[in-house]
């Protein structure tokens, strides 16, 4: 038995349960937050190392063999995602020590944080479609509660849009699961892959595939149903929005990668063509939306949407190189995006606003922060030698090789516009002089998360920012090992027989 497969789910669940028990003790909750996410990070690295060495790992929960029981499967893509969840979770927990005040802890910030991480990891590791739905719901419940933590008017407004669209997505997901089960008689992903390959392509399969595509597309904030994201991500606590920005939409992207490489590959010409157009539209609308925004976190939120387009582009091109690019892009994006949100929180802490018009002069007063902003910002825009450059480079090359010139053109233009957006933030927040009436914290800001101990706390805010920026630099300067990782993950995705064999064992051959 390999315990490391289940640990990334069990650790946050246990930490969440314990911090519920320690409801009244802030110190205990904070310690559990740090220790829980730290252990999670360690466990995820262990899982990734095992998966790298020994190939796809499977655990049949409760000893019930697949396809009857629920299986946890860790292939390289799943393991990479779990590691990224561990990194983001740990960075958020460190950041939260200062950024999350007692009044928010009192409403269950830490238990919800752990629950969210458990849901995310569950979704990454499960090998069962219905189980995936359950983890999506765990995630949704936790994220909804985190989103409204604090109960401000803007948060409610954002949360209603968030919940409405996510429930719609869940309903579609569930209907698709029902149809799929009716057609194939199984919900085990590996078993589904075998069954659907046997029955061959028909119209219903494609309909179900598109239903899943829409359901996961909403979760991933892909065009056209992305508007819940920019409506809600700028409203919660900044630690929460960093965690959301890093992880939540990527679960949708992960599900798309899993389903459209393992299960629905019967009609690539149609489904992946649809995905390609969605990718192009997502990139373009996201970046254009960002251009019209003048609030730090809203700009970043729109850029999440546009970046999702790049990842889907990798999946949609469906060539080995493109999938490598997509996986690499996810790795790069999660770290960069979470970091940018954390930086927006530091800026807010220093200046008391997210509005670009009210910010300025930070280059003069905190040059270190300015530099720390430039690393993820330029990486997001795809400047060499940062991680985003390699991610975009691989995708563009894959696109050219596949002859998808339109989408490559869109990707390049969007890269340029991303640079414009990042420079806009740079100019407004760091470069220009501080506008008059400076120093006064605004009354109309979204969140009142001023620190309990303003002076000493800043170092703890910088720590995760520096760590994530170092990772971005590391992925850029030492891209080769990460590239190899992405290559092997992509190879596993493109050849599902390994996955199927790992899950079903010899049963795969016996089935009529």
């Amino acid at each position, binding site marked *: 038995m390999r315990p490391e497969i289940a640990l990334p789910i*069990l650790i946050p669940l*246990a930490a969440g*349960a314990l911090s519920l028990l320690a409801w009244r003790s802030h110190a205990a909750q904070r310690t559990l937050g740090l220790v829980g996410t730290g252990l999670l990070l360690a466990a995820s690295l262990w899982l990734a190392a095992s998966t790298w060495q020994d190939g796809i790992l499977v655990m049949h929960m409760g000893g019930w063999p697949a396809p009857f029981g629920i299986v946890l499967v860790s292939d390289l893509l799943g393991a990479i995602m779990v590691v990224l969840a561990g990194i983001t979770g740990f960075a958020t927990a460190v950041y939260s020590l200062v950024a999350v005040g007692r009044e928010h802890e009192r409403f269950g910030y830490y238990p919800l944080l752990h629950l969210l991480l458990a849901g995310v990891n569950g979704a990454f590791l499960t090998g069962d479609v219905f189980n995936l739905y359950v983890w999506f719901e765990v995630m949704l419940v936790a994220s909804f509660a985190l989103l409204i933590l604090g*109960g401000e008017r803007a948060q409610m407004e954002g949360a209603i849009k968030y919940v409405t669209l996510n429930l719609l997505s869940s309903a579609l997901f569930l209907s698709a699961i029902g149809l799929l089960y009716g057609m194939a008689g199984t919900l085990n992903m590996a078993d589904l892959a075998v069954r659907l390959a046997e029955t061959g392509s028909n119209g219903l399969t494609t309909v179900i595939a598109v239903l899943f595509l829409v359901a996961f597309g909403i979760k991933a904030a892909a065009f056209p149903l992305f508007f819940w994201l920019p409506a809600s991500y700028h409203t919660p606590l900044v630690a929460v929005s960093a965690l959301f920005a890093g992880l939540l939409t990527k679960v949708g992207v992960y599900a798309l990668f899993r389903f459209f490489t393992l299960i629905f590959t019967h009609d690539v010409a149609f489904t992946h063509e649809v995905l390609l157009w969605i990718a192009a539209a997502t990139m373009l609308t996201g970046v254009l939306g960002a251009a019209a925004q003048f609030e730090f976190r809203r700009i970043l939120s729109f850029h999440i949407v546009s970046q999702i387009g790049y990842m889907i582009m990798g999946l949609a091109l469906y060539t080995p190189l493109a999938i490598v690019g997509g996986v690499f892009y996810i790795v790069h994006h999660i770290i960069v995006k979470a970091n940018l949100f954390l930086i927006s929180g530091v800026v807010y802490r220093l200046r008391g606003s997210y509005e670009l018009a009210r910010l300025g002069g930070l280059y003069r007063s905190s040059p270190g922060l300015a530099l720390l902003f430039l690393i993820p910002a330029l990486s997001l825009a795809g400047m060499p030698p940062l991680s985003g450059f390699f991610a975009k480079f691989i995708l563009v090359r894959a696109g050219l090789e596949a002859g998808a010139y339109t989408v490559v053109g869109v990707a390049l233009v969007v890269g340029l516009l991303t640079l414009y957006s990042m420079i806009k933030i740079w100019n407004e927040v760091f470069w220009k002089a501080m506008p008059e009436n400076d120093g006064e914290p605004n009354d109309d800001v979204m969140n009142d998360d001023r620190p309990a101990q303003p002076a000493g706390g800043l170092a703890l805010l910088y720590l995760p920012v520096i760590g994530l920026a170092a990772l971005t630099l590391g992925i850029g300067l030492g891209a080769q090992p990460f590239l190899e990782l992405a290559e092997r993950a992509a190879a596993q995705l493109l050849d599902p027989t390994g996955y199927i064999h790992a899950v079903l064992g010899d049963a795969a051959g016996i089935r009529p």
Partner: protein
Amino acid sequence: MRKQSVILRTAAHVLLPLLLLFSAFLLLRGHNAPGGGFIAGLVASAALALYLFSLGIASARHALGVDPRRLIGAGLVIAIGSALPAAFFGDAFFTGRWLTLDWFPSGPLKLGTPLLFDLGVYLVVIGSVMTIVLTLAEAEERPDAPSNEGD
């Protein structure tokens, strides 16, 4: 909360222990027959809710004895704990493990990790439902107070 009728109050006193007993019965029966932690937890929380509506919030909190949120935590810990014994024997998490006790004349008593899991679910359900019910009842109690989400 309004003063409730004598009949309801008297009935609540009698019904609470009966319903709790019934929920324990459902919990234990659930292993091989319809029942189980979830439904038993709902029955128990229905009993507590009835108690709350007839005798007020304070007595319901007293009858519950602990903060319901702690029940959620304890239940989760127990449920996760039921996954672990198997791991020590090298099986997958959540594989059932049984302990057979031969001390009773009526036959061997088999205690297993599924029961532990059910017990965890039982506590989580009571904890969640009572958190919701108490929060709603307390919000109704003081309508002028600002409502707080998430508490």
